[in-house]
């Protein structure tokens, strides 16, 4: 099963934790909000992604099953 990242932009506060923990998939725009690479993830990257999702202070980062 592979997963992809998504972000709830309404909830997102631009703390930038996700970009710290998952630079492979998240970069920040000019105002500090995450630009997500939503391609499917497996293996080690997925493990890192789970950690980043769990660390988001406003629970805005999510994992969805990739179709």
């Amino acid at each position: 099963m592979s997963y992809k990242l998504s972000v709830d932009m309404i909830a997102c506060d631009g703390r930038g934790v996700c970009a710290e923990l998952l630079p492979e998939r998240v970069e920040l725009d000019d105002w500090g909000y995450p630009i997500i690479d939503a391609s499917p993830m497996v293996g080690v990257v997925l493990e890192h992604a789970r950690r980043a999702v769990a660390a988001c202070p406003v629970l805005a980062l999510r994992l969805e099953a990739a179709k």
Partner: protein
Amino acid sequence: MIATSTPPPPPPELAGPTLPRLLTSVGKGQSQQAVPLAQHRRTYPPPPAPRRKPIESYIAAIETAGLRGRGGASFPTGRKLRTVSQGHTRPVVCVNGSEGEPASRKDGLLMTRTPHLVLDGALLAAAAVGAIEVIVCIERANHQAISAVERAIHERVQSGEQMLPVYVMDLPAKYVAGEETALVHFVNGGEAKPTMTPPRPFEKGVGGRPTLIDNVETLCHLAQIIRWGPAWFRGQGTADEPGTVLLTLSGAVKNKGVCEMPIGRSMDTVLSWAKPTGEVGAVLLGGYYGTWVSAADSRRVTMDNAALRSIGSSLGCGALVVLPSDACGLRETARVLKWLAGETAGQCGPCVHGLAAIAGGMNELAVGRATNHTVEMLNRWAGQVDKRGACSFPDGAVRLLRSALQVFGADVHHHIAHGPCWGARRSPVLAIPTAKAEPWR
């Protein structure tokens, strides 16, 4: 015996109005009064009494007619009806009469002058999907439309017509209040701000029920299709986008106001109806949330989304603003972008910060303080804002910016090299709504 050669009566489909269709009963310059119920019922039979089961033949008729939404997104209405009718519970129908677009007047006109056609459309759509209620959402400031629709509902109750409960709700006068998730959130008791999707309203909307949200004009077309048939509807417009569309003409033209056009007429024809007061500099199509069309393109493009797509534009809500050639498109765009930036719901970072940055950069450009770096940054921000919000509001602002940088490309260079053009010093053409501290509820 010789049979008399009287031709058979025409099938009902051919008896529909030719042109105009929606505006037949909106007499030109006549009384500002709404068409009364008795007069309306001479042409349109009452919608069927409320029932639980969806009416398949109605949905099929709308699908065959190929009606697309007239609120801006141009989504096939038949597909929407079918999806909503197949939901897990009985749906709700919302009439979207928010018309937050400053350059558009058509929905307000329909609600004020032909409220019974609007209500028929809503009740027929409700019958088609087996809805339990109808909610008419109108912008709070549009007193005329609100009272016309309320009076029309009262008229129906008095005449003893059986109908579903119909409620009128007044939306905050905010641009995004008409966005469908915002509308649902407001009706459900929240602020008129967009919410994250999924779920989309057609799955889970008002009261958690599947919700059909259609623009006022769309529902009027729907009522006419049920009355006169899909073949009649397809008698105007193009194969892919049949029917007529209401346009709101404004800007530097003699004939301001709402007119009805079969989809696919040339923009040149529409401009000849509008009678520009001077040479056309550019056309803003789709209102303040739309795109600029260059004067050259305006002479050759046809007014259907297929053709407009090729020049990066679309009909949108049908508002068309003519900019004279002696006005400055950059300055006009800067003013609109500043207003759009202020209309953000303030929820998503890229929209809040991005639109403000874009409006600021565009203002620098308009007043002649910009450098090539400013234009680079504008393009960079456009890329960083596009598709990054919960709703598509910021995308529209980006579309407007990109079309302005393209259509007024020569002006961009002039403003950077020599400072603002003469047009930037004349009084602006596009009227910007005054900022009010409007509540979100």
